[in-house]
């Protein structure tokens, strides 16, 4: 197991690569999801029934 993590001494490079890739992928997914959320919010506010939307549907 130790050798697996050590990667023959190249741990920083190998795990760094896989790690940063995972990070970038996660960041892209989070960003796109946030963009979708924002877009849905904006669309809700511009919908004709906007009084109801603006008050969170409580009216």
């Amino acid at each position, binding site marked *: 197991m130790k050798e697996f993590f050590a*990667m023959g*001494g*190249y741990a920083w490079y190998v795990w*760094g690569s896989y790690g940063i*890739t995972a990070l*970038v992928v996660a960041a*892209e997914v989070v960003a796109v999801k946030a963009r979708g959320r924002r*877009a849905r919010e904006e*669309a809700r506010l511009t919908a004709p029934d906007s009084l109801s*939307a603006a008050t969170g549907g409580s009216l």
Partner: protein
Amino acid sequence: MASLNWFRYASPATFYPVAGRMIPWFAAAAAVLAAIGAWIGLGIAPTDFQQGEAYRIIFIHVPAAWMSMFVYLVMAAWSAMALGFNTRLSAMMAQSLAPSGALMTFIALLTGSLWGRPTWGTYWAWDARMTSELILLFLYLGVIALRNAIDDPRRADRACAVLSLVGAINVPIIYYSVKWWNTLHQGASVSVGAAPKMAATMLAGMLIMAFAAWFYTIAVSLMRVRAIMLERERGSAWVCALPEIKSS
């Protein structure tokens, strides 16, 4: 009949729910393939004789590089359709692919750099493939920058389409010129980025990761295009009729 059905899906209104149903499948497939690919790349594939464990980076680097070029081609194809048929959705697909392609290029460059350091002693060697990849990143960033600089979405669609096509035509020319430049100036014989001889498991691992990257890109760009559709078409009838938009 057949052509009618095809152009039906060219409307954002019809494509929005279709894309929504496709996303989970592609995302799941990408996750499974990535897990298998990483398992092969990090565990199963044998240690390379020359490069040691450091070569395992190719299981990310090469698929990312392939995707960076493939996505640019697809983006250019959608751009050609947008210019030819003047369809909004084609332009939106091109718009949604640019950031994904740029990120793939970034990952390819980063992992290439991290692979170069332990294997050839330098974070950046001006070899043909890495230099071309860097220029490809500039091409992506240019398309994104042009999109952001133009306020009118339809002008942005057409301008970015022209730019993508001009870029696509130039990519082989750029690659050839950089390759020529590199062979002329190469002192040592080492070509940075030369993968070790492929054992069958290594090739399998790379192909699986390539498919993982492909399905991932499809899933993310479909998510992004849905957001783009909402952004650009908000207030229109079909958007207001969507279940997630209609106020409860």
